[in-house]
């Protein structure tokens, strides 16, 4: 087994195993573009950068998807969120209706309330019947006794962007009329509030992730640059223009970022399969296709930006090369 012992410097390392002339190095050619422009070597550094950027983009995409799903879920859900406000009735139809209307007006004025509906007695009755076991209609004297004691019910639908204090506000407004809010439904509101908090958390996470990504990409590209610092320095010593020095790195960064974006997008699919039935169950429609372009462009942009950052920092170190 022959091992290159003079291949000790970083970029000299051409992996070779065995002393047999398996592949002639003379024949080994870099893939060259027709213009004579030769592609930079694709080594461990590039791989690592690709993997890192891909993972970062993947995480961002994931967070974004989560955001999308959660907001879709809460929105589909928010439409069904309703409070019930119960008002003790006196039995006199006229006054009762007036009081209900007044309360409805008051509730409507509460900020964050989208609509208030007076629930007809029949509906309450059906519901009660259903609750009692669905054993047919409430009839006869039982109905006579029961129905008057049913409270007047108002259904409050919060606006989609309703504040988180809407429940408290509604409860306060209702208390003024001696009405009470269904306490059991408070939990639902709490869950909703929780969802919105989770959503803001997701935004926060996406932001942090994005920042971390920019740092990592720029550092990784800087490392690539460092590994080819001698190339840059040599070009400068030969009198190369700055764009001539930077362009390959910018291109490389952009290409790498775009590739990583594509990879990250592809990696989103298996995850979607895993949670697919769950999403269907929740009736949430998440479109991954839409993410392709942002991930591609975002990756390319991040790559270019990182390369620019990296080359600029390098420039400030060495440009005044005299």
């Amino acid at each position: 087994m022959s091992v290159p012992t003079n291949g000790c410097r970083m970029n000299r390392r051409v992996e070779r195993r065995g002393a047999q002339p398996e592949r002639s190095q003379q024949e080994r050619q870099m893939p060259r573009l027709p213009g004579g422009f030769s592609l930079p070597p694709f080594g461990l550094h590039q791989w690592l950068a690709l993997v890192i950027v891909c993972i970062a983009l993947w995480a961002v995409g994931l967070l974004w998807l989560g955001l999308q799903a959660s907001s879709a879920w809460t929105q589909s859900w928010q439409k069904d969120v309703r409070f019930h406000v119960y008002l003790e009735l006196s039995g006199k139809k006229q006054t009762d209706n007036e009081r209900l209307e007044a309360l409805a007006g008051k509730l409507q004025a509460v900020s964050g309330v989208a609509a208030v509906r007076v629930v007809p007695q029949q509906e309450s009755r059906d519901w009660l019947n259903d609750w009692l076991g669905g054993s047919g209609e409430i009839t006869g004297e039982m109905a006579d006794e029961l129905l008057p004691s049913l409270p007047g019910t108002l259904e409050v639908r919060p606006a989609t962007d309703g504040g988180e204090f809407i429940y408290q506000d509604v409860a306060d407004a209702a208390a003024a009329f001696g009405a009470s809010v269904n306490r059991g439904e408070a939990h639902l509101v709490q869950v909703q509030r929780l969802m919105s908090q989770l959503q803001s958390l997701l935004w926060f996470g996406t932001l942090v992730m994005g920042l971390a990504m920019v740092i990592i990409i720029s550092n990784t590209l800087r490392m690539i640059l460092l590994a080819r610092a001698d190339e840059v320095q040599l070009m400068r010593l030969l009198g190369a223009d700055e764009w001539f020095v930077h362009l390959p790195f910018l291109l490389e960064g952009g290409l790498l970022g775009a590739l990583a974006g594509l990879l990250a997008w592809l990696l989103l699919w298996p995850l979607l399969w895993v949670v697919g039935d769950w999403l269907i169950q929740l009736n949430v429609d998440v479109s991954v296709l839409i993410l392709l372009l942002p991930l591609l462009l975002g990756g390319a942009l991040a790559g270019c930006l990182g390369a620019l950052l990296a080359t600029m920092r390098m420039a400030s170190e060495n440009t005044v090369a005299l």
Partner: protein
Amino acid sequence: MFADAYMTRAMRLVTVRRMIEMRRLMLRYPTGKTALSGMTMNIEKGCFAYLTGESGAGKSSLLRCLYGGVRPSSGKLTVQGVDLRKVGSRQLRRLRRDIGIIFQDHRLLFSRTVFENVALPLRVQGWKPDRLVARAEKVLEFVGLKDRLWSFPEALSGGEQQRVAIARAMSSKPSLILADEPTGNLDIDTARHVMDYLMELNRQGSTVVMATHDLHLLETHPGDIFRLHAGALTEELHYVRADERMPHE
């Protein structure tokens, strides 16, 4: 006033005839080491100049000043009329494109082929891609490595690497060639061959400044000699060709 303007023009003419002009040049490295201490010398256009001196005398440091690798601490230094203590990055780039440098450590790019290495100065100068291979082959032929065009430098012997570095420096026919011990790793025959080629370039108009400790080359390839010692010029020998001698001599 008139005399002043005249003098300035005359000075410029003189300067332009001079490839390199330095006066009390000092170079102090950040480590505190004074590599050059008050060096004064002129090198005319078309000269073939040898820099000699013991190891650590300041030969490489002087060459480094000439291509703008380090900025002198004090004194005056002009190369091709460009003041290297005040030069902007734009002017420096233009100057460097006209200088071919052979570094003491060859500084080949080990991740690129020999061709890419040799063609790099041409690329920098914006040559058409289709002319590159022909030119690289031609230059490599002079150093006897035409068949290694597509090798990687790591598969070359020490002397072959040095010859590739020489080929790179010459590939764009610069008007100034700075060579730092170009024959350090070469056997005598190959060294003489390389020197022949350098002399040929010199005859074609290039100025050559070469740091070397191999004084045997001087027998067959004469030139001006500048002897350095501890950062100062101690000896200066000007070579005058027989056909250039004054008739009364």
